[in-house]
């Protein structure tokens, strides 16, 4: 039988994979997808807990998260497009204008 723990382990695995993607990948779109993965891990754990407690707060929360993810996608893709139009790349390594420049000025 599938218990709460199974859901949680899956959720944690998804979250960690998402975070690893954010840390390791250099392509902005892939990073963005990884963030979506993290948010879906959150959804999964909300729903699992909701079922455990038998109250609806968790399911409500997961709907909120879906809306948030959609809004973030709208803004985020716009920003990525903006950057792409200036630099013709979405590699994060290429975005290095802003940094602690203590000697250069």
């Amino acid at each position, binding site marked *: 039988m599938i218990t709460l723990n199974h859901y949680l382990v899956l959720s944690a695995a998804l979250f960690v994979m998402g975070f690893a993607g954010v840390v390791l990948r250099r392509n902005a779109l892939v990073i963005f997808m990884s963030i979506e993965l993290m*948010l879906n891990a959150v959804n999964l754990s909300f729903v699992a807990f909701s079922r455990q*407690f038998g109250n609806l707060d968790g399911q409500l929360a997961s709907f909120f998260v879906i809306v948030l993810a959609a809004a*973030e996608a709208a*803004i985020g893709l716009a*920003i990525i497009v903006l950057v792409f139009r200036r630099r013709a790349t979405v590699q994060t390594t290429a975005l290095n204008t802003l940094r602690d420049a*203590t000697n250069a000025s």
Partner: protein
Amino acid sequence: MRLDVLQLWQHAWPSLTLLIAAMVSLLTSVFPSRHRARITAVLAATAFLLSAQGFFHQWGLGEAKGFEFLVVDPLSNYLGALIALIGFITSIAAYPYILSQAEAIPEFFSLLLFAAFGMTTMVMTTNLLAFVLGLEIMSLSLYVLVGLRRYDPRSGEAAFKYFLLGSVATAFLLFGISFFYGSTGTLDLSRIPELLPNPEMATLFKLGALLILLGFAFKVGAVPFHFWAPDVYDGAPMPVTGFMATGVKVAAFGALIRVVEAFAPRHELPLQRWIVMLSFATMIVGNLVALRQRHLKRILAYSSIAHAGYLLLGMATLVGTGEIRAAALSPILFYLLVYSLLTLGVFSVLTILSSGGQELNDLKDLDGLSEKRPVLSAVLSVFFISLAGVPPTAGFLAKYYLFSQAIQVGLYPLAIAGILASAVSLYYYLGPIVRMYFHSHEKTWQAPGVMASLRLLLALMVAGVFYLGLFPASTLEISRRTVPIRALEAPLASPSAKLP
């Protein structure tokens, strides 16, 4: 409980005013853009002022009322008024700047209103879901505001970094909230059950609390989650940086107060140790790294990180038993007020100087300013000196209040580290002053004259710096009477009985 719309409006109208004004301002797109900028600016300034007045009025009533999602209590009204005033000052100071941009961007004011609405929502709730909603309304507006100068690659890069890192932080926060929900069965901070369903849940609860705290640490720019702040501050348009440095801090710390208040009685959490460590690292790193910066906005970014460290020190005193907790809130609230005043003052002057179409960037850009713009230089110096905490200005008194509170509860090493760190800070705050006064003038200034309303505002702010430094008693009384809803429902201790 049925949501009574009329009653909600009655209590939360100052916040909803911002939302309505934001929506209305979007409708002005029928006008040509130059007129639009003026109309939205006036609309925003009016809405902010009205909202601030409303919050203050509500504060005066001293009521505490909980709705399904929202809470209206003196704490939320105090912070709400502060946020609205921050919005007001930003919108006045930014007006000439916005007009001076290559293409006037009237959306600035709409986004400002949306962001401020999000901030007020963050401080007006004990429900974590509503909090996240407010946080996202704020953050999404800010992502766009940061990237507002879209022809400027630095602005775009800042928005990009802020968006990616901010979203990750939100994900962590949400994951933490799901654990919180999983261990307590509720999303409301004020309804944490006395006993967790079973002991295993304690670990989950602890993990959830830690993740939530990490999310906050990111938003307030606490070390080691601060790395985004210098880049984003550096790339964002000047008025947006000022708004972020103040508004986001007030909102995030306001919400953090509620979180700490809720977690403080939970003995399973080593909450104080966590906050002390964060505060220590933040004060030290923020101040030391600031010393090495050459860019004006990066200095201010690290300065705002350092100030987050001082505020976290205040948060560490908030973890304690009833009486200590009741006394610990007022220094934090007073500090938030003073910090916002000073930081906005600095950014208002810098925004004026950037209104010539050219963004102030390097410290060198200030060379010899005192000869060309003596009044603005003097005003800017006052704000910098006060940020460093030199008496008899407000900055000193606020720090004094905060540090003496920390010493009183026995956080000696932290308080002494804070005092030393803030002594170090004087050095980098003097940097711009040295540039303005000791170095000779090289380039020509293009910044236009200052409009009368902005002059008046700056004069009032400077007066405020000295007023709060020399005659703070009445303001201290206000901060002392500002208590969260729980303290009102079940008084832990009369807040005025225990003076620090």
